């Protein structure tokens, strides 16, 4: 334990016994929070990002680069706000993306390969983890959600493409198939059939956004960064709102509705018989 840790404990005015219990509580909350962050981040991403991250032949230069950052920053910002406002812990964004990545890999092996026989090369996921680390680090350095949104969210959106291109570039090498040039990613999607996912359902490379360097990639990355700023502020606000949640005031009408009204009086008068219970 460092000097700083001892100072925190002193300020918190916990008794020596309570300090021991608080560490146990820490561990319990870490486990529970991990599952909560995992599930919320994963469900949110499945609903919003979905197909663009499921399959290698959906990872285009336009929508994939735009959609994945803006659909993951919302939970990253919310959890960052909660952890920062309540505990000054700058780990919310990193934890959200790390657990999302862990959950994604479990599903890829268990369901996609195990149930549908898809090879892993077809279903490799991307990640915004590096952007999340930047988001948390800038929050520490700035102590400001405003500055974090301005610079951290921008970098969050911008870093997604280069951080993933590092290991995905190979999937976009040209290859010949049946006399046509295609990419390795396209070929993987063609060879390993998805009966319910026809080729035309892919929403990729629409429009004419190829002004800069004959590719829409960096235009999409900068647009993703731009959108990320606003979504960061919006969902940071949502996280702050969650921090301020209070117990709903329980009135007599509510108690009556749930059968709680008068329970205290009955208990005082003798054992309460549950409806339908036999003696």
């Amino acid at each position: 334990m460092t000097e700083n840790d001892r100072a925190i404990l002193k300020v918190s005015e916990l008794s020596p016994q309570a300090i021991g219990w608080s560490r146990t509580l820490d561990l319990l909350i870490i486990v529970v929070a991990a599952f909560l962050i995992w599930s919320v981040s994963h469900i949110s991403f499945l609903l919003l990002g979905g197909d663009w991250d499921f399959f290698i032949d959906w990872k285009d230069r336009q929508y994939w680069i735009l959609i994945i950052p803006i659909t993951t920053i919302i939970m990253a910002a919310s959890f960052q706000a909660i952890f920062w406002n309540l505990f000054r812990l700058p780990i919310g964004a990193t934890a959200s993306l790390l657990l999302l990545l862990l959950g994604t890999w479990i599903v890829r092996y268990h369901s996609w390969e195990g149930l549908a026989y898809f090879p892993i090369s077809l279903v490799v996921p991307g990640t915004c983890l590096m952007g999340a680390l930047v988001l948390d680090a800038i929050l520490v350095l700035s102590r400001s959600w405003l500055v974090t949104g301005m610079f951290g969210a921008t970098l969050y959106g911008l870093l997604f493409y280069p951080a993933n291109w590092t290991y995905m570039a190979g999937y976009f090498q040209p290859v010949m198939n049946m006399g046509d040039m295609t990419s390795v990613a396209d070929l993987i999607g063609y060879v390993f059939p998805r009966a319910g996912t026809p080729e035309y359902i892919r929403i990729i490379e629409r429009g004419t956004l190829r002004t800069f360097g004959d590719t829409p990639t960096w235009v999409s990355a900068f647009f993703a960064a731009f959108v990320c700023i606003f979504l960061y502020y919006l969902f940071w606000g949502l996280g702050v709102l969650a921090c301020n949640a209070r117990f709903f005031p329980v009135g007599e009408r509510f108690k009556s509705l749930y059968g709680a009204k008068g329970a205290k009086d009955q208990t005082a008068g003798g054992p309460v018989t549950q409806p339908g219970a036999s003696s």
Partner: protein
Amino acid sequence: MSLHLRMPRRGLSLSLLLAVMTFASTLVPVPVAAHGERATEPYIRTRTVHWYDVTWSTQQVGVNETVTVEGKFHLFTDWPDAASKPELAFLSNATPGAVMTRVESYINDMPAQQSVSQLEVGGDYSFKLVMAGRVPGRWHLHPVLSVHGAGPIVGPGHWVEVTGSAADYKLPITTMTGEVIDDLQHYGVARLQLWQAGYALIAVAWIFWWIRRPLIVPRWNAIRKGREDLLVTRTDDRVAAAMLVLVLVVVIFGYHHATQKYEYVVPLQAGSFKTKPLPLPPPEVAVQMKDATYDVPGRSLRLDVEVTNQSDSPMRLGEFTTANLRFLNKSLAVALAGVDPSFPKDLVAGSGLKLSDDSPIAPGETRTMRIEATDAAWEIERLVSFLTNVDSRVGGMLFFFDAQGQRHMVEVFGPIIPVFTQLQLAQRH
């Protein structure tokens, strides 16, 4: 009283056991064999894509060996309004997951890796699918035409046995830049996992840096008492700055390395191709549906049609086909010979086709005849729900044969009336 106390405990134990078993069952992947070919609504299956002359080159392949499914499909003129017209479609196959791999696919001998656009209703197209065995097992293999806005329209399916070991499956390719890929199903995975594991390691280190110290209650109390200065220190600032630099360096280095290593890359290919219908001669038989009933208890489709032979050769009706079911005129040898030995037996109705007048229709003759297609397959294939469709219509293809044995295909379609009792049937006819 003791029993009263034990029962809830036993119930709780059973509930817990059930919960554990349910959870455990989700951990073990259990693949399914079916893929819902009978689930598509009958109005789609009877009035959109009619598959014919479909053959399977073999019913048993080893891992890496190929089976070819080929034939033709006709796009029905009476295409239902509730389903989008085939402006954009993709030739695929139905199997339970990627148990077989798609080696090649063609529509009208044109490569069909991409979607095909602007197919013409009323036209006929040839198709060919070459599939390779990947996972051992007995798999139902169908051709499928996925139509944008109408969904996957499944052709006839046949069981194909894949033998051998899944571990033997390999798909080596060489890219146009000369890189040799040993096996496409594992390509790039190790590299990707190594990088992502590295990213995750950095993230774990960052999280551990923060959670190793007193956490929830002490930090919450410190904030309430205005001592936030204790919670994020100068050391934390330096660590955060180092983390920021580390992330940027790793990303820039990795990106630069990848762009150097893979100098030539191409985007995902998203175009479609076009092809005209097969140049088939127009049918020399005209058919007009006069009345159609489905006898619910008798499981019999009865069509009253007016047939005009416009050729100079006598004609006989040999087959009625709809939704991949085939009803054959068993007294016509050329019709029976049209069923390829590889065609699935369960899709050929055992009772065949019953005609009110099976004599040849003379050239120029117009005849009204009744066609009865009776079989339990209407129920088995879940086709009778066409009675509850919004437009209550039925459609199919009639195959006539002239004296030289040449086939003339013609569409038949129109409204259909369900009859639920024999009395009702007698009143109608």
